[in-house]
């Protein structure tokens, strides 16, 4: 899997690269419009993380160039502006997703995986973790071939944890992903616990476990 990061802020770029490399992606990174344009012209990527506000040009223009060349690279726009206009223009121009800064690393992985999955899993669309198999299309969850019925939130939590498996996912990241942006001003994220509890019950027969990490967040452990 090849990923290109286009980001002019070096520390931001470094964070993203570190985190994505750990997931065994091949990561390339550029920090200017010109370099990005060159890379896009020469290579193909599974996913491009594109910052709009580049010092020497607008990221949306890169997106246009890409589409003009008929390339099908997945594109996630990463922007500090979180402007509705940019989001709409970006999606209109063919971007796959729009991720406003600041974001949680777990969220970045989820978005990248979703884009990569949509583009690459032509034949095998199933997601597997331990003895659990998930079909993202139909949202069916099977443990050892036996279907388990999860509600929307339980399913979203499970998918998010699988996407970020073996990584600590903070409660805030999980709450914002599953319950949406609007939940964010709640005075505590402890309310997610009841859904986690239900999910754990339903995963009793599975070889994966949702582990709490010191009340900070959760982690998916896969029995080996």
């Amino acid at each position, binding site marked *: 899997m090849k990923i290109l990061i286009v980001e002019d802020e070096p520390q931001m770029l470094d964070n993203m690269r570190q985190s994505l490399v750990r997931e065994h992606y091949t990561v390339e990174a550029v920090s200017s419009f010109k370099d990005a344009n060159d890379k896009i012209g020469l290579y193909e990527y599974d996913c491009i993380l594109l910052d709009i506000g580049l010092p020497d040009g607008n990221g949306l223009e890169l997106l246009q160039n890409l589409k003009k060349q008929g390339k099908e690279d997945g594109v996630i726009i990463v922007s500090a502006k979180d402007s*509705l206009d940019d989001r709409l223009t970006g999606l209109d121009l063919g971007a796959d997703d729009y991720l406003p800064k600041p974001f949680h690393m777990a969220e970045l992985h989820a978005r990248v995986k979703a884009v990569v999955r949509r583009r690459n899993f032509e034949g095998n669309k199933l997601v597997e973790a331990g003895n659990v198999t998930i079909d993202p299309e139909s949202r069916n969850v099977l443990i050892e071939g036996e279907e388990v019925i999860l509600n929307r939130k339980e399913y979203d939590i499970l998918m998010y944890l699988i996407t970020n498996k073996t990584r600590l996912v903070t409660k805030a990241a999980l709450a914002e992903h599953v319950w949406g942006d609007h939940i964010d001003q709640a*005075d505590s994220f402890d309310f997610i616990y009841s859904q986690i509890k239900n999910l754990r019950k339903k995963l009793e027969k599975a070889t994966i476990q949702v582990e709490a990490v010191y009340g900070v967040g959760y982690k998916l452990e896969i029995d080996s």
Partner: protein
Amino acid sequence: MKLLNYTSKYLALVLLLLITSWAVLFYYAMLDEIYDSLDDGLENQKLLMVERAAEDPTILSQDDPEFKKHVYNFTPISRKTYLNFKESYRDTSMFMLNEKDFEPVRIYESAVAYGDDHYKLKIITSMVEEDDLVQDLAVYLIGLYIILISSILLLNNLLLKKIWKPFYNLIAQLRDFKIEKNTTIAIPDTTIEEFNLLNTTVDKLIKKSTGSYVAQKQFIENASHELQTPLAISINKLELFLENNTLNEKQSKDLATVLDNLGKLTRMNKSLLLLSKIENQQFEEEALVDFAALTKRIISDFEDLAHHKQMEIKFISEGTFKLNMNEDLAIILLTNLIKNALIHGKKKEEILITLQKNSWQISNYGITNELDKTTLFSRFKKTGNLKKSTGLGLAIAKAVADKYSLELGYNFKDFHTFNIALPLNS
């Protein structure tokens, strides 16, 4: 009271005082002049009498104290009396034949000598009727007063109104001026120096405040934008640190606390940006929003939070409330109010949402006294010490309500109620 009538009121009062005191002065001055001229006439008559007596001494034997035959009277007096006699004028009344009534008269008493004979001479003349004079004077003065006041009112209303027109024009515009709506003020042309000064000053002031308002708005927006990247870097660095290192419980919790606070900063920043965006009219796309359907959707989003706080959100829909507005803003409006009720509501109590025709309201039990209505919707106004509250939720709700001219109200009666309603006149 209007400016025009205000000056008229004082003018009327001052005029009344002026005219009254002037009338008193005028009356006495006139009376004095009349007496003076009467007395001159009487003295003249005396001289005529003396001359006549020299020609016709018979008149000296006229002794007619009642003035029945003549308008004069000679009374013989002693020499001693003559020497001590002092001329005098005095007023009395006498029956007038033509008026058939007692009328005031003036009597002049003097002493004259003819050889060794001494006489007291009394001459009488008709006097001005003071009561008639006062009455006439009063009638004419009241007339004058009325004419003056009505001409002043007329002048005020015709002339002054014309003169003050630029002023009224300006204040009418100022009344409708809203700095956040970016309205401009057309400064009316005038030849009057004071108005020109006022106009230029107002113009300067408005340009200056609009300038600072825009600058402030841009500052908030730019500051919020500029904060996003460092926030993102810090959050991600800490998340990577949590991932990459095996930390003990205390270390993890400390890091989580830092992350939580950065999260709070992020939310505050996002809220400030949102406020700027609402004020900058960046949510123009509109659709017909059904408040009932939207409420149900948001309640289901908040189910877990409510459950965690052992609260129940009850929704009663008794009518329809649909409005053309931006859907995101509608979500933000209702979400913020529901979230507010959940955060500040008392545990184990119910939250009641009622929807009626063109109104929506939410009630919750909370602190047992009323919140300060004047500052409730201000930015960073926090009640209690909830550490995760940004103090911007209600300010945002208010900004959305204002944008669509919705009334957003609050009242307290055992429980706190927030109410959204279409204004009655629309």
